[in-house]
């Protein structure tokens, strides 16, 4: 157990290092990425640019800049007041990046945890139902819906939902985008999130339903399911205890990584379409402005969740499948 955690922590540091170096290098190589020229605004004098370079340290070697940036990102996570030059600031807006990400977390977490629960529950229901009814018209119907769900792009579905349910009606049932903190008004919080939850889950429900259906159909042909029938178990006991239990194992790893990705700011489209101002929205803003510090911040934040959840997945996997438990 302890060696597992230590191994994972070392791995996490390595991944975060690799990812940050990669982002940094890509940024240096990117044309039009010189932050000094962008910060100097329109029609700058050459002296202006030189001054900016000097002040922000853009004239230093790239590895010095990298280390400095990482230091700032690190201190931003520590509690307490920080000196003016210890803060990782956006090149464009001069805002504190760590602070901005923290500000986006409640919206992102509200969106993703709610959507995650919805898509997991409904994905499993769809998968089980269509596997049990495999080949019948109800399976075909639900399979068609699942395919439609998988095929609808979030930006399109989100805009359509928002337009027809929140903007167009004279007395709309849903608010037109935005986020209300849970602590401010739980009812409004939920009301504001229903459409985004739906929008984000639809794709995953369709996908998980398809994966689980085919897993279950494979598992139904396993010899141990035949053994369970020969033992005289009821068909729903066989379905729950032997078929579903074994078919869920791959779903766990899928869910862990997908959930980590949206939690880590991957729900960019949903957050942007519904003005949720979460981490994904922040990432979209920063990418549009080629603003390195926020991009770096969001990337590290996202990578952290990916690494954390892949460790959790491994852990949970061993719980679900005794064959891979260390002995």
């Amino acid at each position, binding site marked *: 157990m302890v060696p597992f955690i230590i191994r994972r922590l070392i791995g996490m540091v390595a991944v975060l290092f690799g990812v940050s170096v990669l982002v940094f290098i890509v940024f240096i190589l990117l044309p039009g990425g010189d932050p000094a020229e962008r910060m100097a605004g329109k029609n700058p004098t050459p002296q202006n640019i030189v001054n900016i370079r000097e002040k922000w340290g853009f004239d230093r070697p790239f590895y010095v800049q990298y280390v400095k940036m990482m230091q700032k990102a690190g201190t931003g996570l520590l509690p307490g007041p920080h000196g003016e030059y210890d803060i990782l600031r956006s090149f464009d807006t001069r805002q504190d990046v760590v602070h901005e990400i923290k500000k986006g977390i409640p919206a992102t977490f509200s969106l993703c945890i709610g959507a995650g629960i919805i898509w997991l529950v409904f994905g499993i229901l769809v998968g089980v139902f269509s596997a049990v009814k495999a080949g019948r018209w109800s399976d075909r119907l639900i399979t068609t819906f699942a395919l439609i769900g998988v095929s609808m792009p979030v930006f399109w579905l989100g805009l359509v939902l928002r337009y027809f349910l929140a903007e167009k009606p004279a007395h709309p049932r849903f608010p037109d985008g935005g986020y209300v903190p849970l602590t401010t008004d739980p009812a409004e919080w939920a009301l504001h999130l229903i459409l985004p939850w739906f929008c984000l889950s639809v794709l995953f429900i369709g996908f998980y339903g398809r994966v689980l259906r085919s897993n279950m159909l494979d598992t139904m042909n*396993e*010899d*141990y399911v*035949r*053994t*369970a*029938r*020969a*033992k*005289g*178990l*009821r*068909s729903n*006991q066989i379905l729950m*205890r*032997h078929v579903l*239990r*074994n078919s869920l*194992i791959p779903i766990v790893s899928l869910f862990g990584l997908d959930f980590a990705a949206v939690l880590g700011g991957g729900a960019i489209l949903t957050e942007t379409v519904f003005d949720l101002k979460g981490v994904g929205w922040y990432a979209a803003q920063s990418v549009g402005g080629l603003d390195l510090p926020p991009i770096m911040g969001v990337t590290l934040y996202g990578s952290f969740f990916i690494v954390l959840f892949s460790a959790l997945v491994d852990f949970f996997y061993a719980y*679900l*499948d*005794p*064959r891979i438990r260390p002995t």
Partner: protein
Amino acid sequence: MAERLLDVKGLKVRFATEDGIVHAVDGVDFELDRGDVLGIVGESGSGKSVTAMTLLGLTRDKNTRFEGEVIYKGQNLLDLPESRLRDVRGNEIAMIFQDPMTSLNPVYTVGDQIVEAIVTHEQATKREAKRRAAELLRQVGIPNPQQRVDDYPHQFSGGMRQRAMIAMALSCNPDVLIADEPTTALDVTIQAQILELLDRLREDFDSAVILITHDLGVVAEVANDIIVMYAGRVVEHGPKRQLFYDPQHPYTWGLLGSIPRLDRPKPKKLHSIEGMPPSLINLPSGCKFRPRCPHAFDKCEEEPELKNRVEDREHLDRCWLSVDDKRRLRDTTIAGEARVA
């Protein structure tokens, strides 16, 4: 006279598939008494496994059609609704399968899977069932059963898993134990142990065993009655001694000839039955073995019925050759010297 447990009459099983109707089992009759060990022998696709699975209703499907009767304790299992049949499965008729590596669910302990069988059919607490599971594991020869009952299947060797399967099958004291190729996936040394175990437990539990195999050597050890199946039919049925010392059907001769033997001169090459088993969708007319039979003649274009043709009244076969011809031809056939014309 021992108690009659199973009476199978005119059993036919057909599967509707996209390619046509598969006549998997086409007329199987046998009786099974308490204490019997019935061996069912045949190649892959001869219908032996389908016969066994049908006894438990495991082949039930909307594309499957059944004919005939499977009488167990006065009721026809083929007509029994699924809910009633469940009470028979694992409780009165239990089954073990070919591959012990895949027949146990990898995510539950061996003990849990035995407990599951017990609590399905009996009013027993989990604790009581688990105590019995450990006792069953002891009876099938698993060392340290108290500890091993909490092991997962992957912590067991192949032979141990098959012992665990047997323990599970015996957990509710079934009247009939169906063993479908129970030793095929195991080492030869383990095979003998498992067969011996089956035979000993049959006595201890006072049940009957149906042993399905493609290996005449396996039934030779334990069976007292043997059925040879070909293309979904019984082609020969008789007591073990009769079948081994006075085999009547050319297919049986072929099977006997394909066993390597140490007590005979070493042949240049191990004999095999020429050709392939027929498609069960387009069966040949007449005797189904005719295309592969070295002794086929005009009369074989009509299918012979399964009946007694020799002195022993219990010995039945499905071949037109006269008994004298059979006794004259079979030794050379078993030795692999006869060829299909």
